[in-house]
């Protein structure tokens, strides 16, 4: 077993873990169940987190390689008291159905809008290419990203 300190959603956390384990598993075992497991193959994007500001599929990251790094999950960007405009936009645009893809979708959107506050439709589609959604057909999700971009522009 190994031990390490991680900074998750702004708080320091110490975990003990199997050296071969993936970050997704360790996060989920320690209560960060908002990070979803949809495939464990790097195909679905349900497990997406921000790792030192980079967008990664946490199922593809060795936990040991993330020691000391900054991790942000969907809970780290906002909650009911101060929802992030992206979260607001997802609700307003009706971009959430079963919700299983939603945490990953929101983080991919967050990452896109950080560097590109006014993305064009094809840029949005490209940015979400790694996030599978089986419910929505992506139409309302793309609407939500556009809406979020407008909302953030207003702030």
């Amino acid at each position, binding site marked *: 077993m190994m031990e390490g300190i991680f900074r998750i959603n702004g708080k320091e956390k110490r975990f003990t873990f199997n050296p071969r384990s993936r970050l997704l598993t360790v996060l989920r075992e320690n209560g960060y*169940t908002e990070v*979803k497991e949809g495939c*464990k193959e790097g195909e679905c994007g*349900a497990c997406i987190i921000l790792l030192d500001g980079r967008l990664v599929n946490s199922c593809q990251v060795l936990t040991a390689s993330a020691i000391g790094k900054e991790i942000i999950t969907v809970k780290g960007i906002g909650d009911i008291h101060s929802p992030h405009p992206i979260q607001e936009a997802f609700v307003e645009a009706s971009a*959430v159905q079963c*919700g299983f893809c939603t945490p990953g979708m929101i983080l991919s959107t967050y990452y896109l809008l950080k560097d590109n506050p006014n993305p064009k439709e094809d840029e949005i589609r490209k940015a979400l290419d790694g996030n599978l959604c*089986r*419910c929505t057909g992506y139409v*309302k999700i793309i609407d939500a990203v556009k809406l979020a971009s407008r909302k953030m522009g207003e702030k």
Partner: protein
Amino acid sequence: MKEISKPIRKVDDQDKIEGKVRYIADIEFEGMLFAKTLRSGRPRARIRSIEIPELPDGYFIVDANDIPGKNRVKMVINDHPFFAEGEVNYIGEPILLVVGPKKETIFEIIEKIKIRYEDLNPILTMEDAERKGKTFIDYEFTKGDPDKAFEMAEKVIEDEFRTGYQEHIYLEPQGVVGICEDGKVTIYGAMQCPYYVKGAVMEGLGWDEDRVRVVQTTTGGAFGGKEEYPSIIAGQVVVAALKTGRPVQLIFDRDEDIMVTTKRHPSVTEYRVGLDGNGRITVLDINIKLDGGAYGGLSGVVLQRALFTATGVYNIPNLRVRGSVLKTNKVPSGAFRGFGAPQAIFGIEMLMHHLAEKLGRVPLDFKMDYALKTKDTTSTGGIIRGEVKLPEIIKEVEKMSDYRRKHKESRKFRGIGLSLFLHGCGFTGKGEESIKGKVTLRKKGKDVEILTSSVEMGQGATTTLRKIVSKSLSIPITQVLYDNPDTERVPDSGPTVASRTVMIVGGLLDSAAKELRERWDEGDEIEVSKIYKHPGYIKWDDKLLKGDAYPEYSWGANVVEVEIDPITYEIEVLGIWAVYDIGVAIDERIIQGQIEGGITQGLGYATIEVMDSVDGELVQRTLTDYKIPTSMDFPKIESKLVRNPYKYGPYGAKCAGELPFVGAAPALASAVENALSVPINRIPVTPEYLLEVLSG
């Protein structure tokens, strides 16, 4: 009345955007053990022996010997064992569970278990099953006098269509937890049908209903995939919980989920068409064959819907419709959005398209010559009672898509296709009558709680049902409560399937709400229940397959435009236009979500979702091999609704959940035909298939 359709903020979204909502894999129960399934590696074999290594303390094997009741899962045909009993009939069939506190140790134990098989001759293709006469069920019915009509026909044309497997890929894999406490079991899990699970567990344990409780947890997509399958794994974990005395969790990983859960039935459909001297269709002979896999399950009912949908939106005077579910040693097929209708609609729409091309007609005009009208008789001799608004639907979709001009100007590698379709609302035949769905409204102070076994699985049921009740009671939606169903609290409203939740269950809630409104001042706590009764005019004979197969129909038209790469034969979809009559939408934006999701799944089915079985084993076993549409695959979907209130639906609503799926594939495939001027007889339409067709 119109205002009900106005979109509102969905009530269950807040928890989902924060990541606060807990799916079954996110819930820890105290002392919970994990389980992993050991499965058959053979398509058909006798199990000679199972060698179990010495188990570390706290680890258990759970198998058929631990089942106190019947080792068969209650579905429609009750033939799937919870655990194999001496023989296996498909690769992936569950044999036993290894249960214990540590996942790694469980994997190590599984690795060490040795099974000796005696292989038996498997049936691995539909053709082989047909040759050997292996079917679960066969149906046949006629209308008019098909034999005579064929005799009189000037010309007889034959055609055949095939469709492939489709895997649901709900983003949340299957999962359940079983708990045994004080002589009672509780199952938590992702599911569509809490009372199906309850019934199956009662039979597996041989226990009565007071001792079995089922609680649905927030479900991450289902699409039919969580209709009958959860009953199997619920039975397994419950037996494990009984044996270990601890809560037992069984969650599939994606590969396992793809490999062993039910899929959409592959199909082969043969058509014989009789034409008179004027090129008019006088008679149709349709034979639909579905690959049922190793166990019957729900396949017979899927076949029924396929057969009752076989003539699509057309009125043909003479018919012979037959079909069978073939028994093969492959993973069982089961419920999937559309439930047999997609295979049937693909076939009939493509057939009509082929006939139009042969006769030199514009497909749309040719189709309209046969379109059903109000008061027409259906293939089973039922009556189309509601107003048929196909002409209006078509006018809209033509306008949106510019179909006629584009069809006329179509050139090599660019084409446009159109599909017309319907969907029978609610259960087939006697289904609704025998289930007798029940709902209850409970007033407590100023709040009213909805008690129903209909689940939310992403389709918007919580918002839609609350909207109906809030409107019928004239109270704010925030005063209408709804929680995930718990069989201890909710009556059996029937399963969450067959696009029946709004029309049937919503209808019951509407009438309960109206009664409660009358009685509102009687007290602080009032309960009102309603039980479903079929409208009196509906007649159905289950033996003869005669009468009204469905109480009502929803309708639609899709147009798809494509461009095909002349070198790679990859299909690019340029536009998708869709118009539907679903009666009245309870929430227009939720319906758009159903439309967009349904069409995207349907286009995936038609193009990239390839799944083959070779020697009884699936070739595509991971999300890397089995591709579903991403945000890059299809352009924006333009959709519209034509209003057509249904007298018995709440606020005029009919069915909507499956309808958008069924029309997409034929619209796409006929667009490809239009672009390449070659007949398409199969989905998925892959570049490899196109190459094959084009090189003759």
